[in-house]
C-alpha cells in the first residue's frame, strides 16, 4: 500500500532541477513508474517526493540524426524505442531488447531511461546500450555532464546519478555501415518475465566485437577482456565456441528465486556462443 509522498510534475527542466536542488535526497524521479511504483507499494522505497519527468518537453525526444546518432529522451517509452524504424534498422540489438522487456502494456509505460536508472542487474536495455557505447546525459542546476553507460552503473540498484541530478536522455553514436547486432535472453517462461541472462552482441563493420550481459553480475557488464580475445582471432565457428566458454570466466552470477548461479553460468555461455555464431554468419539485422 502506498505511503505518503508529494507528487510533482514540473513543466520545465529548470523547475524540475530547482525542485531536486531543494528535495533531491528525499526524492525519486519517475518516468513510467513501472519499477518505482512496485517498490513504493511494497514500502521498499519510501520517497517523500515523487518527481514526474514526463511534463518536461526535452525528455520526450526520440530522434535519429544522420551523422550524429540517436537520442532517446527520459520519457520515451520502451515501445516507442522498439517500434522506431531508425532503431530497428541501425540498432537491432536495442530494438530486440526493447521488444523483450516485460509485456506490451508495460512497455507502453516503461521508459528506456527508467530501465537504466533503476539499475537492476537484470536491466534488459543496459546490454544493448553498452555495446553501442551510449552516453548518459545528466543535468543539475550546476550544469550538465555526460557519462558513458559503462561507467553509469556502480552497484545493485546504484548509479553515478547524484540526488540533485536527473537524466534527460541517452545518446548512441551512429553505427558505421556493416554493423551487426542482436540481443538474446533466457527467462523462466516464454512470455513476460525478467531475464535469467541477457546478452547483447555486436560486430562492427571493422570486425570488432562488443559484448554485454545482464543478470550475471551486480551491474550489467561489458565483457571487454573477452572482446579483446575475440578481436585477436580470425572469425570462425570455433571462435563462437571459445567465446561461450570464456564468457563464463568473466561473470559472477548469483542464485535467486529465478535461477541458480550454476544455470546462469551455463546458459550465459550458450547465449554468448549463439550470439557470436549468428553475428559471424551475417545475422544481426532486425528480423533476420
Amino acid at each position, binding site marked *: 500500500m502506498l505511503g505518503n509522498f508529494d507528487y510533482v510534475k514540473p513543466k520545465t527542466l529548470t523547475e524540475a532541477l530547482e525542485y531536486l536542488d531543494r528535495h533531491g535526497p528525499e526524492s525519486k524521479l519517475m518516468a513510467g513508474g513501472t519499477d518505482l511504483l512496485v517498490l513504493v507499494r511494497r514500502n521498499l522505497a519510501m520517497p517523500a517526493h515523487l518527481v514526474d519527468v514526463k511534463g518536461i518537453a526535452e525528455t520526450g525526444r526520440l530522434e535519429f540524426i544522420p551523422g550524429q546518432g540517436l537520442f532517446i529522451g527520459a520519457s520515451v517509452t520502451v515501445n516507442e524505442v522498439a517500434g522506431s524504424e531508425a532503431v530497428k534498422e541501425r540498432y537491432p540489438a536495442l530494438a530486440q531488447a526493447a521488444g523483450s522487456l516485460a509485456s506490451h502494456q508495460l512497455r507502453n509505460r516503461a521508459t528506456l531511461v527508467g530501465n537504466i536508472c533503476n539499475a537492476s542487474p537484470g536491466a534488459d536495455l543496459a546490454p544493448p546500450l553498452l555495446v553501442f557505447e551510449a552516453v548518459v546525459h545528466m543535468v543539475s542546476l550546476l550544469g550538465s555532464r555526460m557519462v558513458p553507460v559503462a561507467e553509469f552503473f556502480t552497484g545493485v540498484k546504484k548509479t553515478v546519478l547524484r540526488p540533485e541530478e536527473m537524466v534527460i536522455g541517452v545518446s548512441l553514436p551512429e553505427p558505421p555501415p556493416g554493423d551487426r547486432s542482436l540481443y538474446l535472453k533466457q527467462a*523462466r*517462461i516464454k*512470455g513476460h*518475465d525478467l531475464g535469467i541472462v541477457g546478452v547483447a552482441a555486436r560486430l562492427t563493420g571493422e570486425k570488432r566485437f562488443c559484448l554485454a550481459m545482464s543478470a550475471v553480475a551486480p551491474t550489467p557488464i561489458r565483457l571487454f577482456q573477452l572482446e579483446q580475445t575475440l578481436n585477436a582471432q580470425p572469425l570462425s565457428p570455433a571462435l563462437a565456441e571459445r567465446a561461450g566458454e570464456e564468457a563464463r570466466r568473466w561473470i559472477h552470477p548469483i542464485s535467486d528465486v*529465478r535461477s541458480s548461479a550454476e544455470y546462469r553460468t551455463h546458459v550465459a555461455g*550458450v547465449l554468448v556462443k*549463439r550470439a557470436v555464431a549468428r553475428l559471424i554468419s551475417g545475422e544481426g539485422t532486425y528480423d533476420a
Partner: protein
Amino acid sequence: MNFKVIGTEAPRPDGREKVTGAAVFVADLRMPGMLHARVLRSGQAHARLRRVDVSRAQALDGVKAVVTGARFQRPFGICITDQFPLARDKVRFAGEPVAAVIAVSEQVADEALKLIEVEYDPLPVVLDPREAIRPGAPLLHEDLGSYARVAGINPCPGTNIFHHFKIRRGELEETFHRADHVVDREYEFPSVHHVQLEPHGAIARLSPGGDLTVWSSSQAPFVVRHTVSRLLGLPASKVRVVVPYVGGGFGGKSDVTIEPLAACLATAVPGRAVRLVLAREEMFDGTVIGRGLYARYRTAVTREGRIIGEEILLTLNGGGYGDYAVNIVGGAAASATGPYEIPNLKIDAYGLYTNTPPTGACRGYGHPEVHWACERQREIIAREMGIDPVEFRLRNILGPGKSNALGQIMEEDHGRVDLCIRKVVEDLAGPRYFAGRGHGPGGRPAVRRGKGIAAFMKAPVMPTNAQSGAIIRLNEDGGATVSVGAVEMGQGTYTALGQIAAEALRLPVEMVRVVPFVDTEVSPYEWQTVASHTTWAVGNAILMAAADVLDQLKVAAGAAFGVSPEELEAGEGKIFLREAPVVSLPYSRLALGCTRSDGSAVNRPVIGRGTFVPSGLTYPDPETGQGNPAADWTFGCQGAEVEVDLRTGEITVLKLVTAIDAGRIINPLLARGQVLGAAAQALGSTLFEKLIYSEAGIMRNRSLTDYKIPGPEDMPLQTRVIFVETPEKTGPYGARGLGEHGTVGVPPAIGNALANALGADFYALPITAADVIRALKGKGGGLRAQTF
C-alpha cells in the same frame, strides 16, 4: 434424443459485461459508511506470541478499531476445528493474521499496522511433510486430540498427522513375493498457488438489529454462512452471504478463507461495513496454497505385464492448519492407482501439519498430484519390462465389471478410458508412437523431441449427501428465471445451467436467465461450487424444478381446457393437446395464473423447485477404505509432444492433446475452454511453478514478479480436445464433470514425453531448463532426474 439447446455453443450471458469491465466483483462494491481493514501478518513461520501491543495503532487518527486474537476465542473449521480467525497463542505459518486494523481508509489502516508491536518466541520450523511425520519433529498442534472433528477424520494426537487415510485390499506381501518385477520410485509435486485473477475479498456488516451480511468472493457461500454463524453464535437465518461474480476460484476460494476474519472484524464496529480485499502478495501467504505431495510407489508386476499389487505412501503438506486439506488426503488416496484395476493394494495417505500456509483445494484436488506419480510409474514399468506403454496401460485398464481401489464396480455408462487413450495416441502420432528415444527434427542436432501420454480418472470428492437446489420462477412473458446456489467464477456454469433449464422447459435459451449471483437469503442451498460437480448436481436439481414447472403448467392448462394433464405436452413455450396441437396455451398466459373469460383465476403463479443429493453414497470403511464414496468418474487421457533445446535446456510443448469422456457435452465451446484452461494451468505447475521458502519458512516468491504462471506464449503451438461422449446415467442429459480434469494428466504426459526425448526420468516438478541441463550433464540425482 433430439436436443434443441444441449450440445450447442450458446453464448455466455456474462460475456459482454466481463470483457467490457462492467461486471461487478466484491472489490467494486461500496457501502455507505464503509470502513477498511488491513491485516498484520506473522513474519515468523512458527512462534509463540509473547506480546501484541496495539495501543499506538489504536491512537492513530482515523483508526476505528484494532483487533487481536484475544478478542475471538472460538475456533472454527469445517472438518477439524483447528484454527482461529486471528492467531491466539501461536503462529503456525508466516502470513498468518496476528492483528487487524479497521480504519477510514486502507492507507490509514496500513499506517496503523506499522505501529503494532509484536514479540515472538520463535519455535523450530518444519516445512517438509516428510520431516514433519518423523518422531521428534517440531509439533504444531499440541491440542490436536481435543479438536472437534467430523466423522471419518483420523488424526494422530501427539504428532503432526491430522489425517491418516487407509486403503487395504487383498494380500500385499504374498503378491510381492510372486511378482516378476518390482518398481519402486518416489515423486514430488511441490506447493503451488492458484493465482486467481481476482484477489480474495469480503465485506462484512453487523446490522444494529444483530444480523450479519457478508459480501464475498467465495465459491462456498453456504459454508461461509455455516462457519460464520457458528463462530459468532448467530442463527444461520441471521447470517446472509452474498456472492457476486467471482474472478477465478480453482478451489482457493472454496470452504472459507478470509470470511471468518471479515465477519469477526465487523463485530468490532457494529453498524459499519468493513471491507477486506487482499493485495496480490497477500493472496500467496494469506489464503490457501495448493498441492504439495510426496509419493512413494512400489509396484508388483507379472511377466505378462499385469499389475498385481501396489504399495503407495502419500505424504501431503497440509500447512499450518489441516482443515482445508483433510479431504484431499482421502481423495488423493482413492484415485492414487489411476484408471487401473489393481487387486492387491496398501495405500497410506497422511496429511501433515507444517509451517507453510495451509493447503487447500486446487483444481484437481489430489488427482494431479497422484497422477504425476502413478502415470510416471506406469511409463517406467513399461519401459523396464520392454512392453509398449500404451499396451501396458490397456492390459491393466479399468473398465466395465472391474473394480477400482475403493471396491466400486465400474459400469458401461461410467465412461471409456481405453477409448480416450486410443484417441490420444492416434492423434499424437499414429500407431508407431513410442519408437524409442527421441530425435531432433531435420538439421537441428541440438534439439530433441519426444512424446508421452498419461491416462487419468477423477471423481468428485464430496460429502455423501452433497446438496444442490434450483428454483424456477416462470415470468409473465413465458420466460424463466432460474435461481441456484452455485457460483459463477468464470467457468461458465450459468451458461451451461441455463441450457439445461431451457432444454428441460422447452424454451429457447434466450428466454431463460440464471440469476447471476448467490444470496443465501434467497438462493437455494448448495454445498459448494467445487469438485466439477455443478453441471451434474445442480443440473439434476434444475431438471427436477423444470419437471415441477411443466407439471404445474399442465395441471393449469388441463383445467383451462377441461382435459386431464396426461393428455397435454409441452413444447416451444406452449402447453398443447397431444392429439390436437393447435389447442394450446403459451406459458406466458399461465405463468402468473390464467383467468377464464369471467375473470376467475384458473391457476396460481408457477414456481418450480428441485433439490438433489447423490444417492447411495457411503463413508469408506475406516480400516480398508472400501465403500461407495464416489458418485461418478470422468476418465480421460492426455498426450504431449515436447521439444528440448539441448544447449539451454529450454522446453517447448509443441502439442497437447486431451481426450475426455465427460459424458454428454452441454456446451462444446465452454467445455473446450475449461479443458484447455485447466491444461494451461497444469502446464505451469509442470514447467515452472513452485512456492519457494527460506529456511525460516518465509515465502520468497510471493508476487507475480517472482512467481510466474503461463502466458499466451507458453501455450502449446497445437492444442486439441477430443470429447468421447458416453452418457452418464446419473447426469443431466448424460453429463459428467470436466472443469478440473484437464489438469490431471498434463504433468505426467509432459514428464513422459521428456523421458522419451532425453532418456532421463524426472521425478520432481517443476521440470525447468536448469533441471534438463543437470540431467544431461549427469548431475541429476535424488528426485530431480536420473538418466536411463
